[in-house]
């Protein structure tokens, strides 16, 4: 088993390294000169442009830039954002908190609601099952950014009960519990958008595994022994059905930094997603590199952890590891 995990960790490191190279090459191929995004509209003296180029290593050959990049990464230096006049790591980490405030509750609630819906569908069946499937299908098919716009139109503009965008009420700053309630008010609509999709993801996964468990021999046996449907669900189906959800949970958590990209844009949420969209517009190379790399690391780490958890929770997998990963 330890050998298996060492293997996993080794491949994770390879994955991260490959992605560092891929990211670097990809982003360096972007046409255009970031110096001009920095100066603005009016002609600048050549000296000044040259100085910027020297300072930021833009006049070096590509492989030298890559070498500098790798060296800097090793020291935890993700570069300096021209557009923000701030170190990239500070910039991203500063926004990460805001994104996590939005994404963590979204994932947790989506997982709970998704599992609950599919359990309820499995136990009630019939019309309820169809309704849950329909909800899931809708969440999977709706463009979230569009949903966001429609929600803003209804709740912020027409009804005027919720704010259109941002994280705080700037006009009447609150403190303590009031500030928390204020944050909640700002979170409602973006959270709804993200969850519409994530509930669908979780309920699909849970539904698949619940059906798998329901049809398995031991549940059949339990039912045959005369145990009630509800008891069987609660004691036998749920614990087994949750296991695959852990894997999805790890994956979703890993994608925390990027899954709210479109939603943050619509709601002007000051998180990583908005930073990314702005950086694409500004050709802010180091920020793009940083976000891609950090989110990749997060996905890889989350996957390994989910794997670990998965294995601990489900003894059958521990036993069959050798066969599965031959």
């Amino acid at each position, binding site marked *: 088993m330890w050998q298996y995990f060492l293997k996993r960790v080794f491949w994770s490191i390879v994955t991260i390294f490959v992605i560092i190279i891929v990211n670097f090459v990809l982003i360096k191929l972007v*046409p*255009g*000169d*970031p110096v*001009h*995004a*920095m*100066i*603005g*509209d*009016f*002609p*600048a*003296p050549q*000296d*000044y442009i040259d100085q910027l180029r020297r300072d930021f290593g833009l006049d070096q050959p590509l492989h030298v830039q890559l070498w500098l990049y790798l060296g800097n990464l090793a020291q935890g230096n993700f570069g300096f954002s*021209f*557009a*923000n*006049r*701030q170190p990239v790591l500070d*910039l991203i980490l*500063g*926004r990460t908190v*805001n994104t996590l405030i939005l994404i963590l509750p979204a994932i947790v609630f989506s997982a709970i609601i998704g599992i609950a819906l599919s359990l309820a569908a499995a136990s009630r069946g019939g019309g309820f099952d169809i309704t849950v499937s329909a909800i899931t299908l809708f969440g999977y098919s709706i463009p979230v950014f569009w949903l966001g*716009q429609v929600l*803003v139109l209804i709740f*912020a*503009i027409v009804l*005027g009960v919720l*704010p*259109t*965008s*941002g*994280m*705080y009420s*700037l*006009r009447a700053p609150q403190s303590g519990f009031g500030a928390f309630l204020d944050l909640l008010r700002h979170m409602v609509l973006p959270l709804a958008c993200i969850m519409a999709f994530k509930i669908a993801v979780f309920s699909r996964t849970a539904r698949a595994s619940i059906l798998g468990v329901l049809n398995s021999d031991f549940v059949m046996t339990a039912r045959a022994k005369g145990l009630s449907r509800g008891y069987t669900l609660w004691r036998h189906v749920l614990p087994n059905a949750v296991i695959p959800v852990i894997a999805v949970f790890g994956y979703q958590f890993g994608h925390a930094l990027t899954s709210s990209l479109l939603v943050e*844009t*619509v*709601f*002007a949420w*000051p*998180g990583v997603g*908005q*930073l990314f*969209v*702005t950086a*694409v*517009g*500004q*050709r802010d190379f180091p920020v793009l590199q940083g976000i891609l790399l950090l989110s990749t690391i997060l996905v890889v780490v989350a996957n390994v952890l989910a794997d670990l958890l998965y294995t601990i929770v489900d003894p059958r997998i521990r036993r069959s590891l050798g066969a599965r990963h031959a």
Partner: protein
Amino acid sequence: MFKKSRIISVLRWTILGGLWVAPAAAQAEAAPQRGGTAIIGLAAEPKGFNSALTSSTPDTVAGCMVYEGLLTIDTGNGKDEISPLLAESWDVSDDGLTYTFHLRNANWHDGQPFTSEDVRYTLEEVAAKFSPMFSAQVGTNLVKVETPDKRTAIIQLKQPYPTLLRTLNCTYSTPILPAHIFKNTDVATNPATTSQPIGTGPFKFESWQRGSHINLVRNDDYWEDGKPYLDGLIIRAIPNAASRIQALMAGEIDFIPMVHFPLNDARMVESTPDLQIVRSGFAPGMTYAAFNLKRAPFNDARVRNALLMATNRQFIHDTAFSGLGDLGRAPWPSGIEWAANREVNYDVSNPYDPERAAALLDEAGLLAGADGTRFSLNIIYDSAIAERNQVANALKANWGAVGVNVTLQPLEIAVVMPRVFKEHDFDIYLNDNNSYGDPAIGVGRVFVTESIGRISGNAAQYSNPEVDALFAAGAKEIDPDKRAEIYQSIQPILVRDMPVMMLHELSGFDGAAKRLHGLWGWIGNGRWAHAWLEQ
């Protein structure tokens, strides 16, 4: 020795009103109220606060609340006059080479006194080297800045430059910086540039929630008595244009400055009871299309003239600009009235007439093929500006109607700039241009040979020795009448040669809450020291 042209500080708020500041007339009557915090919405977060290093709008907006220039420009009631700010008054020598500034008694936000040394340091060591505008316009023409005493600063020039005063304001990249903070440091990375500005302005920096907003608070020690009225200002970044407008309409922000306020939303904002559209104090500008004169068939003046005749400027004016501003009729904005030649008018020389345009294209040998197409071209433009996309689509449809197949290439500004101005890899370039209120500063750069290859310079690569000589003469001429004559004589040449065509005469318009008053009538984003909120 000195010609006494001392200008006295006069605040002109009593005579506001007139054609384009209609709401301001009402403002003049209502008594200003103290208190409250106004919220400004921008399309991008500032990179810093130092407009001496950049002319980008977010930095200028945030920076010029905290820093101030020596002068400002009074644009109230259709005027265009240099007004005092940190300099109380000034004298100009007869030969136009010596400018003496008498400075105001003011303090920096850290309590240190503002002195002539700050002016010397800023102009000599920062603006002349780094300021995008001052370094290009004055730069090596600056001999030195003398400081005979703490309240006097004297600028010495090599050659006369009659538009010098116009460049000495914060919005146009010349904020006065505190020498005691900046001296012997790297200006670009000094915290007073990047995160902790210390100025003389009406508002002091308080905090910055990165990615969200900046808090500024009232400077109780401001040199102008009783100002500012507001307790504070919040500058908020909302990159998505739709979200920005929604925030304004929902009352979450009070003000969106021009450039960041999409003009094609103007009608919608105007029809909202609590909101107003106000013409900002920006210098006349234009939306123009530059032809790549080095490429066929744009090297043929008939083709360029034909394309202008195929263009429905009225439609562009009505849709993309919501009828705000004016139709393009001359090579540069007629808003610089003294330099406008009234004989020059596209409506006469190149009226919208697709049939004549088609005939002219036939004459140039560009006959329609079997599918009706004469030739193809691409239009390159900055993708971030919504109304420009609309203009480009209108051109595509207009020119398509006379058999020209148009491909649109909206690109990020960082890509557009080198591609158009350095590599000259484009057919048509659609852009905005700020005249900065004087042809010597903002117009000449579009046409003179010297600025070929310079960013925001001469995209068309137009080179005409006669035009070069006239622009050079105009920049140096001290006599206003002679200057006007020189510039007016350039316009007919530019219509004949048509290196660029002006599609629309731009004016800056701000979107604002109606309860915001007292702001407008000054160059830049208004004078926030005078702004007040109806409670």
